[in-house]
């Protein structure tokens, strides 16, 4: 034994970067071709873990939006007229190619987004492929989906997605749109455009007809131009509630169909009879998965006062084992924050929490010197009146509140303008059902958290948006019903 080191230090286990070949520059993907922006504008996509520039990407402007919508409109005629079974096969092809290229895409996504390879490998990519596989099967069965015998596509879908799950959000948007016979123009987020551009290449490999999928990297103004475009029939947006409201106003008085998947301030409710060890895991998954940059994050821990101390001790001990660092390392639990802006926002909100008297705690944790990092953080002594209990932080920051009775737990959980997710931890089955019934949230995880599946509809109540993505329900957003 004496020749052994005294602790079990995990040696670096980086996933190989060489499995992905990132070109120095990328164009817009319009009508099956990569092209520069009409005005020649470009922007840089950086790796948030290192601040290294990964590629230069064309930035779409109004003229490009016009061109892409036109291409999508032109493609719509043939695409929507294809037999469903043929559309299905294109989607099955895409699903399979994603599976084949999943390692490459996982590394790419980790580089561009900053999230740990463990997550892109085990969560993002399997779900992306599964989502295409699921909706592929719907393409020739739409008459059986409960929307009448012959539901019709809407036309051109303008889709704007966020940076937290770039490729997964793309899948959530594109798979149902194509299955139902729509064509799409999709704008990826400005900080994470690369996986969408790789997806364009997958479309090429799959032989997808030109113009069915168009990808327009850009900033908010690109998204605004797309959603406001008069020849777009359907808008799907995932992102902040503020932008979602702006889009809703823009679309008022039009006949564009709109679905919005927006912010959240999910309550994770732990009762005194919870399976404690699993609850601790669920809390950690709930708020530290993807660095808390998850709209359905369980960012408010509501713990029954009688077990608060015990639970917090366990939670803190568990947080001390989280491994923060190189997102490409297979043992990394916590990666980088997606951008300097997001880091600044998280930092400012955490400072507000302290200023308002909440007690801040972080596990001892060394942050890398370059890149954007934020240590997993807890706030205790938080009440519903604290900013950190009300505002969506979208980062690895958990606010801990207490409750005494199930009624109080439900009242606090629902006391928010959001209504996306909630968690319930108790071994008492009837309590799960009673509490789940009263929670005003679109997804309720009982004795688990942050689980996703293509068959399971996802979406919010209240200001978390409307419409559902996933499952049979997810078809409705793209059909004339």
């Amino acid at each position, binding site marked *: *034994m004496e020749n052994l080191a005294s602790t*079990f230090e995990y040696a670096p286990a980086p996933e190989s970067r060489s499995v992905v070949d990132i070109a120095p520059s990328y164009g817009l993907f319009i009508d099956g071709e990569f092209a520069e922006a009409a005005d020649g504008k470009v922007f840089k996509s950086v790796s948030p873990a290192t601040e290294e520039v990964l590629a230069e990407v064309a930035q779409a402007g109004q003229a490009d939006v016009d061109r892409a919508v036109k291409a999508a409109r032109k493609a719509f005629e043939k695409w929507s007229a294809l037999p469903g079974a043929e559309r299905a096969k294109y989607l099955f092809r895409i699903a399979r190619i994603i599976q084949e290229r999943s390692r490459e895409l996982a590394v790419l996504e980790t580089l561009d987004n900053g999230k740990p390879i463990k997550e892109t490998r085990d969560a993002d990519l399997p779900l992306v492929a599964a989502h295409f596989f699921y909706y592929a099967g719907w393409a020739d069965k739409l008459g059986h989906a409960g929307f009448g015998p012959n539901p019709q596509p809407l036309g051109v879908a303008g889709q704007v997605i966020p940076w937290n799950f770039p490729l997964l959000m793309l899948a959530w948007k594109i798979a149902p749109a194509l299955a139902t016979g729509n064509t799409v123009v999709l704008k990826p987020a400005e900080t994470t455009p690369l996986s969408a551009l790789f997806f364009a290449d997958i479309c090429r490999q799959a032989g997808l007809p030109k113009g069915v999928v168009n990808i327009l990297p850009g900033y908010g103004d690109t998204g605004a131009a797309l959603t406001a475009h008069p020849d777009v029939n359907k808008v799907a947006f995932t992102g902040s509630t503020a932008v979602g409201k702006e889009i809703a106003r823009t679309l008022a008085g039009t006949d564009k169909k709109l679905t919005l998947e927006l912010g959240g301030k999910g309550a994770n409710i732990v009762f005194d009879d919870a399976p404690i060890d699993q609850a601790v895991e669920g809390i950690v998954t709930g708020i530290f998965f993807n660095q808390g940059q998850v709209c359905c994050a369980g960012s408010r821990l509501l713990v029954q006062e009688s077990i608060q101390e015990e639970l917090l001790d366990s939670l803190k001990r568990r947080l001390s084992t989280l491994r923060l660092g190189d997102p490409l390392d297979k043992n990394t639990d916590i990666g980088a924050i997606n951008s300097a802006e997001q880091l600044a926002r998280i930092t400012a909100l955490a400072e507000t929490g302290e200023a308002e008297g909440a007690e801040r705690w972080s596990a001892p944790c060394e942050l890398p010197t370059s890149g954007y990092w934020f240590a997993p953080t807890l706030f205790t002594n938080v009440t519903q009146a604290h900013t950190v209990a009300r505002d969506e932080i979208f980062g690895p920051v958990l606010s801990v509140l207490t409750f005494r009775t199930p009624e109080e737990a439900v009242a606090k959980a629902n006391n928010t303008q959001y209504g996306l997710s909630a968690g319930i931890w108790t071994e008492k089955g009837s309590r799960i059902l009673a509490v789940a019934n009263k929670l005003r949230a679109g997804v309720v995880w009982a004795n688990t958290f942050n689980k996703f599946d293509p068959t399971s509809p996802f979406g919010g109540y209240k200001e978390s948006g409307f419409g559902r993505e996933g499952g049979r329900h997810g078809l409705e957003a793209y059909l004339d019903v």
Partner: protein
Amino acid sequence: MPTTTPPPGKAALTGTPLADVTASAATLRRFLHGLPGVDAVGLEARAASLGTRSIKTTAKAYAIDLAISMIDLTTLEGADTAGKVRALGAKAVHPDPTDRTTPRTAAVCVYPDMVATAKEAVAGSDVKVASVATAFPAGRAALGVKLADVRDAVAAGADEIDMVIDRGAFLAGDYMKVYEEIVAVKEASAQARLKVIFETGELSTYDNIRRASWIGMLAGADFIKTSTGKVGVNATPANTLLMLEAVRDFRAQTGVQVGVKPAGGIRTTKDAVKFLVLVNETAGADWLDNHWFRFGASSLLNDLLMQRQKLATGRYSGPDYVTVD
């Protein structure tokens, strides 16, 4: 090597919140039924997630040597002979005759009638002799017989006793009987360290495994051990994770540290490393020592040795380059 802790057991719990738990069958039952429940899916998901840790290069070398040092090299067959046990002892002392830097295993584990032979075989080394006892593996014998079995093994020189609990009594809800039997065996074991086998595959549910863990720890177990290796389901990452949580919580409440021994079904280096990750990230580094964690295994050792040779030479080894016993 840590110094020996005071013998746990009832006395050790005096003054802790658990002192009165075993006062009566009713208090014990209430306590056990008041333990937090276990959600099977969540537990198994956590175990699976820890199983995805990537242990490479220096960490792998460390883990392999640590795992070898934690093995209770076991033979528990009706066909065991003195020759077989001597060979096992030799292997425990020098697992890899080609490389003397290879750590010794923690112990050899044999039936009571082979203890004396085993002691001779490992004489002069720090390899311990563990003996299963208490009418292993079924445990279906009168208490007197079980205690005689234990005393016999101890008298023959056993350093460690691996007892089985009365699963029938446990499943019938007679927790006090299970508890008292462990207390009696602990006493009969004298200075030998006591490993309490639950036969988790027969207890069937995770809630039961958690309760059994606490009965064992309250009764003074030095180790809690998953299984005999003689039933369909033996050590799994999930049941071992659960038992690691139990010893972690027990120490937090009483200050008494108890070891854990998964046994049966761990055959590959990859598996063993996953278990070490479970230990490291659940109970913590204090348990990363063969005083507190063991593997009940036999074929695992050769796989570890082959992996060790691979790390040393850079080429894959083969079964002809490790000894069959």
